[in-house]
């Protein structure tokens, strides 16, 4: 990949002496083909980010309006109990979701990589939850975790009368049910990423280590897992942005409740902007979410680009 990049950039840099018209067209075609996409991205992505940023400094209520109020919306936002609860929940949820997904995904991938029978079928089973939308996942888990119709009721009917699992309706634990459902949905996908990474590890290194007398455990902890570093990074980035934009899952599973105990920033943003006529504060919360994403992305991009240069 980096090879082709450098060679093509060299090709652009070298001044071409005399060009035929066909060459010129060939040079323009990629730019021409890419330009609509570029316009769409600039207008609908960066344009709307800019607009949201602008709205966050205005007194917009039901519809956008442009009376500037400075940082007022941000001050109100951070004085809002509910926003603080939502941010705290995002911290708990994102941390647990990412860590559990990575650990579980890696574990599943390593187990699947042991040249077992019916690997294809098992892989599909683990990957399948990814094919469901978060709304479906949320609804299914809502029924399963409901103490009166789901798991608790089932185990109790089997005879274990004192069994209790009421996290869904317990304000202190409701956010963890969102973690459970999200992990169920996404860990298979992380497993697939790791599995691809594992298949890419050079067999000869492993063989050399085996000849040197390294145990299986050492081979994994010293050679294979460290070589999966890029996979960790891609998985982390994908999981982090899934976590920050989480909306549908929590809405379907708990509706942000009981009370506001499992509220997330995306739900807060939607409600304030679109149902409570507080578009200014909603826009401010959207900007904070964007900044959170940037805060994660920038160090990652920086480290990746630095590695490239190093090569």
């Amino acid at each position, binding site marked *: 990949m980096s090879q082709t990049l450098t060679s093509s950039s060299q090709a652009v840099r070298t001044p071409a002496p005399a060009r035929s018209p066909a060459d010129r067209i060939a040079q323009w075609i990629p730019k021409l083909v890419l330009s609509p996409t570029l316009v769409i991205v600039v207008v609908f992505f960066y344009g709307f980010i800019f607009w949201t940023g602008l709205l966050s400094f205005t007194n917009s209520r*039901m*519809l956008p309006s442009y009376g500037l109020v400075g940082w007022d919306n941000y001050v109100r936002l951070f004085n809002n109990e509910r926003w603080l609860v939502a941010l705290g929940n995002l911290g708990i949820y994102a941390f647990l979701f990412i860590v559990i997904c990575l650990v579980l995904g890696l574990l599943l991938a390593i187990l699947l990589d042991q040249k077992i029978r019916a690997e294809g079928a098992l892989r599909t089973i683990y990957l399948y939850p990814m094919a469901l939308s978060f709304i479906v996942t949320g609804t299914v888990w809502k029924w399963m975790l409901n103490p009166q119709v789901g798991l608790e009721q089932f185990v109790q009917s089997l005879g274990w009368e004192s069994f209790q699992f*009421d996290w*869904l*309706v317990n304000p202190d634990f409701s956010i963890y049910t969102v973690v459970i459902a999200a992990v169920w949905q996404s860990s298979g996908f992380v497993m697939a990423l790791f599995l691809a990474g594992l298949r890419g590890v050079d067999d000869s290194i492993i063989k050399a280590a085996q000849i040197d007398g390294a145990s299986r455990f050492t081979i994994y902890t010293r050679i294979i897992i460290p070589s999966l570093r890029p996979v960790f990074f891609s998985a982390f980035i994908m999981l982090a942005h899934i976590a920050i934009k989480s909306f549908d899952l929590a809405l379907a599973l708990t509706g942000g409740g009981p009370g*506001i105990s499992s509220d997330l920033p995306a739900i807060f943003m939607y*409600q304030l902007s679109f*149902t*409570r006529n507080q578009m200014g504060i909603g826009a401010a919360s959207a900007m904070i979410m964007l900044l959170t994403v940037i805060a994660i992305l920038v160090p990652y991009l920086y480290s990746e680009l630095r590695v490239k240069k190093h090569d």
Partner: protein
Amino acid sequence: MYLKKRFMAAAIASALSVSTLSATATAGEVEVLHWWTSGGEAAAVSVLREMVEKEGHTWKDFAVAGGGGENTMTVLRARAVSGNPPSSAQIKGLEIQEWADLGFLANLEEVSKQEGWDDVLPPVVADIMKHYGYYVAVPVNVHRVNWMWVNPAALEKAGASVPTTLDELWETADKLKAAGIIPIAHGGQSWQDATVFESIALSSGGPDFFRKAFVEHDQDTLLSPQMETVFDQFRKAREYLDPGFPGRDWNIATSMVIRGEAGMQFMGDWAKGEFTAAGMEPGTDYLCLPFPGTEDAFAFNIDSLAMFMQRDADNVRAQQTMARLVLSPEFQETFNLNKGSIPVRLDQDMTPFDSCAKASMETFQRTSENGQGLVPSMAHGMSTSSAVQGAIYDVTTTFFNSSMSSQDAVRQLASAIRAAQ
């Protein structure tokens, strides 16, 4: 010269008269955005559709399914901003004023004068429909929010009597609990929490307290010991719920009362539709009673159709026709029989309605005449802007689902309301 002028004037006059003539002849179109999509409601709306079509206009349905209509409002906003709003939309309470302030709503002065709306509507209702003295919306029905739905068989089994005060309510609840019946059927959604909170506030503090707190947002009232008592009582209600209540829909809670699993539910009169659909008779199979301690109070929730400004003259005419039809006694009767609510017209013939609706109408007329006890519902967007309402929701639902103290709740409520204003 003079002749020429006269000729011109005559030509213009005749041209004008021709245009008005042709306008009355051609039919306009009304596009109605609403979320009356469930069985009975849909049937009720189709009656209006037939009436509009009988007058020679066409009807375009713009129904968006989905309960509270959050999605609908997003669609409506997009269309209004792009200059293409529907003729009318189901908007209620203070939101009517918010739309009118932005200059989107049509003036219904002409049709309201012709039909004498001021004479048939109670002033409280008319005020909500008016913007600077002119009608911009038409009311469709009146819901009473402070109802209590009781399964008398369940109460009898527990040896409990029907409560008429808050203290009696907790006694009854204790007896039901002792008999193994869920005392209160409730769904833990923020609007349902707010509905119960509102009824308790109305019972414990009375209508004046209610008005000061939730209409005027008087900080002294919000921070008063009385508000603390309201939160204490609200906390007490929490003790009588079953563990599965969070997130439950209101109609599921109603079905618990219908089946006798639960003794009581506190919900507006739209719950009646569920009892009717289950084939139960009011007064014998189930009881509809005012929330304990609120016999003389009426927390109203009025559905209305706001009329959007139209460019096309034919459509304006069709719109006015529809506005007239919505308030006609004929439509009021059919719609409200289906919806479980009561008509807005004070002169409506109540013979076809059941005992619950008659009782509701009696209280409505009484409270609107003496000017006491008729209060706009906070939980249903009649008393405050959606921003303040949302702030109250957040505090009440957090309180209900946590161990927050009543003092903290009072403080948070007051500051949340101030911040949202």
